[in-house]
């Protein structure tokens, strides 16, 4: 009985460790995909508002290429960079909206 319990426990552990081992790369791919689509959505927002920064599209494109090449860590890093740029563009546009009238010659 004791042996059965030990074998069962061992099998379960083995199964879980196997699962986690095999799902690791897939999960990174998922994270990268998610980060890219998040960055893409934010960039589209900035682009439509005519405030996107100069390099964001390029960074996003590179992130997609890394994703395609299965370099998920690089893809995630660049997607985050692209998201940051698009986000900052929208934030600064909001800020500028409040102050631009102050520089109009009167």
């Amino acid at each position, binding site marked *: 009985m004791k042996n059965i319990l030990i074998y069962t426990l061992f099998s379960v552990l083995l199964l879980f460790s196997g699962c986690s081992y095999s799902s690791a790369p897939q999960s990174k791919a998922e994270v990268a995909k998610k980060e890219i689509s998040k960055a893409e959505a934010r960039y589209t927002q900035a*682009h439509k508002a*005519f*405030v*996107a*920064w*100069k390099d*964001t*599209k390029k960074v996003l494109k590179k992130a997609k290429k890394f994703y395609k090449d299965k370099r998920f860590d690089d893809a995630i890093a660049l997607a985050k960079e692209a998201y940051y*740029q698009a986000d*900052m*563009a929208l934030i*600064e*546009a909001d*800020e*500028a*909206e409040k*102050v*631009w*009238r102050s*520089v*109009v*010659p*009167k």
Partner: protein
Amino acid sequence: MLNRYITVSVLLFILNSLLFAGEFNEQAEKDRIAMQKYFLKKFENPLKNAGEYFPYVSEEEIKKNYIYPLKLEDFVNGTAAWYKPTRDQMVEINDFPPYEIPLDEGSELWEKPFANGKTYSSCFPNPAIKQNYPYYDVKKDEVVTIGEAINECRVKNGEKPLKYGKGEIAKIIAYIAYESRGKRINVKIPNEKARLAYEAGKKLFYKQRGYLYLNCVECHVIGAGQRIRQEALSPILGAVSHFPVYRLKWGGLGTLQRRLAGCVKDTGSEKPKLQSKELKELEYFVTYMSNGLKLNGPDTRK
């Protein structure tokens, strides 16, 4: 009796249009006059008002290199209006203007018949039309630039539209600009939608953008009359009068749209598409600011 009614109606219509036309450009006129006043005051005596307008320029440099006081008409010369080194360079360069050959080519293109035998004259009987562009097309509800008008003419005559920015279109605009020399810029704001387009252009001009968080004002209003390293910055007032320009940096003739897109990019923003709604509205605003000034394009710039 009927004739009287018609006459009265027509008169009322004209009166109404005139009254409302005045209303639509009321703010724009205030903006234009304020801009002119700003620049006239700024360049009245840079030595005297250096603290207010030229905080980074030494007294010595003002004495040596600045031309002042400036009159309103002087602003059509851009940087060459106030900065001696640029003026000297321009005078020398324009002994044999680099835009002369493309201008001649533009003239030939103007005369060259399309496949259907017609020429650009079928759309524009008089090429001296640049002073009216860009204009707000009330039927299309959008700003129309001179480049678009040219392409519209081509399409109407069964030809492919030209690429905006440089090349053939810049040459044709150069010919139109040359024929329009001496005409005063006369951009109008005919209705409420045109006013909104003007306001959108104004906002784009004054609002900070890009990763450098810059607006057009920093270089071409506040910065005008000062330098960024070796580059003397030109005032926005009169800046549109000499386009298209042969830019030494480009090594060729380029349109105002191309220059504006480059300026937007220089702020660290995504480069806008030529003839995009935003860029046309910016051109509409910027050109309105120079209303009343004489056209002197094409010209040469650094």
